[in-house]
């Protein structure tokens, strides 16, 4: 390996790849060759930088210049100006959207988005080449595995996990060390270590990004966990919809085997551990641990009752530990830096950091990692850069369909496991969908129920039938057919399903309904009593009007797909409400905002 004077890091996460970062990479290679810089400049494809909103992202070191929204042809400009002549291409630098009059930010260290973050899980994402094991080793990779195998007993490893206070990042929040101790104490000739990479929550993508950006960290953590519980075989259960993550994981497993970091007699200590990938077909329920086990065994992914818990009877009835990707990503660092280091940030019962996937109505869409206990306000305004188009913040849906919404009045609440549950939501996998005043909360509840109905495996009646009935009622309300008493019926059904469903999917499926009724009951009432959708989303409850502001330009009439707008040139136009299909095309076409919906 040569030493280069400059490194060009191109984001190879799914977000940036889908906006063409692979083509940009190819173009950089071409331009660098053309200018004879192959020996001076190295191009590296990394994992997700986090600020997906401004992707494709390219960072040039040593300056740390953060280029945003890079296009293919920009590769030429950056090569000729920055790499060849040392002039940073100011026009392409990321513009800080948070402060309107701020200057362009020159270096990645100056970006507001990163300032409040503490990147532990994501520390290597966007820094190293995930397809090169040497770069991971350079960042102290596999040192934790070495330390565990040569200096520690399995019980010590479990103890350090318990002391650290690490809790499962997949949703439930069960203490990791305690879980491991169950499997370590269980009897069985063979034990299994499973990584749950079946990330199905709408809006969550941190597990994918970790696997794409730092796959070796997961391999290392699984081997450590395997040692702690006495397992020699691991599986990564990952959904086939994550092709880049699967690809990089395959490469990483291959490299680990070549280097003797997986397989027999690791570090000459006699410890054997092997790892295989199992692809899931993308069923939401397969993220539930017992359904996941069924799926690996080759059956339909359906949950079974617990107990027995997988730690005692898991895969093929053998003791099995299932940990989520983000949980695992913390483990090597806890071993290297100690339990106190890990517990030094966070809240009393929630230690460490949490990765959130920010999506929806927010300026900086992307992936953030913050200490537990950071307030919602800091997330939305300081890191997320606020709500676009000057709209008002309404709520955040956390934890996907298993979670609920937290609202304006909770902006100063610290985000941790227990607080979120107290607010009627949950941490879940960490998806955060930001909603503004234009979102109808009844419609949001309907959206999530729609998802759950699709994803219910059908094994138990409460979930199979109950969620379907709830969805029907929500559809009824949003289409203007709601009746008095519907809210109470919905609530009753919701709590019945919660108490009787077989697995986590069904037990949490009513959460979006319960929490939206709790905080936005008035919106439900407006739909039912007044037949109005206050946010202007539910089509059947809307009517489009043309106000006096109309200048008679005829644009609306020309854009109307059903020809229901009439009026003479330069005179007020009128919409025929009976024929209007409420598509909104006229509203978009109007140059003077004369069309309103009520």
């Amino acid at each position: 390996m040569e030493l280069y004077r400059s490194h060009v890091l191109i984001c190879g996460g799914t977000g940036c790849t889908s906006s063409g970062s692979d083509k940009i990479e190819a173009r950089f290679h071409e331009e660098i060759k053309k200018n004879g810089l192959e020996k001076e400049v190295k191009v590296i494809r990394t994992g997700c930088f986090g600020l997906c909103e401004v992707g494709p992202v390219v960072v040039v070191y040593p300056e740390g210049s953060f280029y945003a929204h890079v296009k293919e042809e920009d590769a030429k400009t950056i090569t000729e100006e920055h790499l060849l002549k040392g002039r940073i291409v100011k026009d392409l630098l990321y513009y800080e959207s948070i402060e309107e009059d701020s200057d362009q930010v020159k270096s990645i260290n100056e970006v507001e988005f990163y300032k409040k973050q503490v990147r532990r899980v994501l520390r290597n994402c966007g820094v190293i080449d995930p397809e090169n094991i040497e770069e991971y080793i350079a960042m102290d990779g596999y040192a934790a595995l070495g330390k565990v195998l040569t200096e520690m007993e399995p019980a010590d490893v479990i103890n350090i996990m318990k002391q650290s206070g690490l809790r499962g990042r997949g949703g439930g929040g069960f203490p990791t060390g305690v879980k491991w101790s169950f499997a370590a104490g269980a009897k069985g000739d063979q034990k299994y270590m499973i990584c749950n990479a079946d990330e199905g929550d709408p809006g969550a993508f941190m597990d994918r990004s970790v696997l794409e950006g730092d796959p070796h960290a997961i391999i290392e953590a699984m081997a450590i966990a395997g040692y702690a519980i006495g397992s020699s075989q691991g599986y990564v259960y990952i959904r086939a919809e994550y092709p880049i993550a699967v690809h990089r994981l395959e490469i990483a497993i291959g490299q680990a085997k070549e280097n003797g970091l997986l397989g027999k007699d690791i570090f000459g200590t006699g410890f054997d551990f092997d790892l295989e990938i199992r692809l899931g077909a993308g069923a939401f329920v397969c993220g539930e641990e017992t359904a996941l086990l069924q799926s690996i065994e080759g059956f339909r992914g359906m949950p079974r009752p617990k107990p027995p818990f997988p730690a005692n009877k898991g895969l093929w009835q053998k003791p099995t530990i299932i940990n989520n990707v983000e949980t695992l990503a913390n483990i090597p660092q806890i071993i290297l830096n100690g339990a106190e280091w890990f517990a030094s940030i966070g809240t009393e019962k929630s230690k460490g950091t949490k990765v959130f996937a920010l999506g929806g109505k927010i300026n900086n869409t992307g992936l953030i990692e913050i200490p537990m206990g950071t307030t919602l306000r800091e997330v939305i305004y300081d890191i997320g850069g606020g709500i676009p188009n000057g709209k008002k913040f309404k709520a955040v849906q956390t934890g996907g369909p298993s979670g609920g919404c937290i609202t304006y009045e909770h902006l100063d609440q610290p985000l941790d496991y227990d607080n979120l549950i107290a607010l009627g939501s949950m941490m879940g996998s960490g998806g955060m969908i930001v909603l503004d005043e234009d979102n109808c909360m009844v419609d949001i509840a309907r959206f999530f129920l729609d998802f759950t109905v699709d994803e219910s495996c059908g094994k138990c009646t409460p979930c199979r039938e109950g969620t379907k009935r709830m969805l029907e009622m929500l559809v009824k309300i949003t289409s203007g057919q709601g009746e008095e008493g519907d809210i109470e019926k919905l609530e009753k059904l919701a709590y019945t399903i919660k108490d009787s469903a077989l697995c986590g999917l069904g037990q949490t499926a009513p959460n979006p309904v319960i929490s939206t009724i709790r905080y936005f009951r008035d919106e439900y009432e407006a739909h039912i009593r007044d037949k109005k959708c206050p946010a202007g989303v539910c089509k059947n409850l809307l009517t489009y009007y043309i106000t006096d502001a109309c200048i008679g330009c005829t644009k609306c009439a020309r854009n109307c797909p059903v020809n229901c707008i009439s009026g003479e040139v330069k005179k007020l136009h009128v919409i025929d409400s009976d024929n209007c299909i409420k598509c909104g095309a006229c509203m978009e076409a109007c140059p003077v905002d004369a069309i309103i919906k009520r």
Partner: protein
Amino acid sequence: MKSLAELAKIRDEAKNKIDLRGKKNTRIVVGMATCGIAAGARPVLLALVEEIKKRNLNDVEVVQTGCIGVCVLEPIVEVYNETGEKVTYIEMTPEKARKVIADHIVNGKVVSEYTIGAKKA
């Protein structure tokens, strides 16, 4: 992987190569505008990088910059220490660059005969 020593060896070798991506104490800035390149800044830059690699100087970064404005004195190299104080070297060559690394960066002794002050005097 048979031992921790083996892992440590790989780590130390690989660390140097990705060191560009961290914060450094010393910063060497090379003028690489058209005038600088025409005057021979590129071989100077490469010599600096090579010398730094040879000596495992992990906390030194080499960056390039645009025209400093005194084109007649190019190639220009500026060395900033951790407090931001700088020394400007002018009319550099690869040989001079190597000496700057050895004397100034490693031993902390400014090579005054190459500095901009020497020219004026």
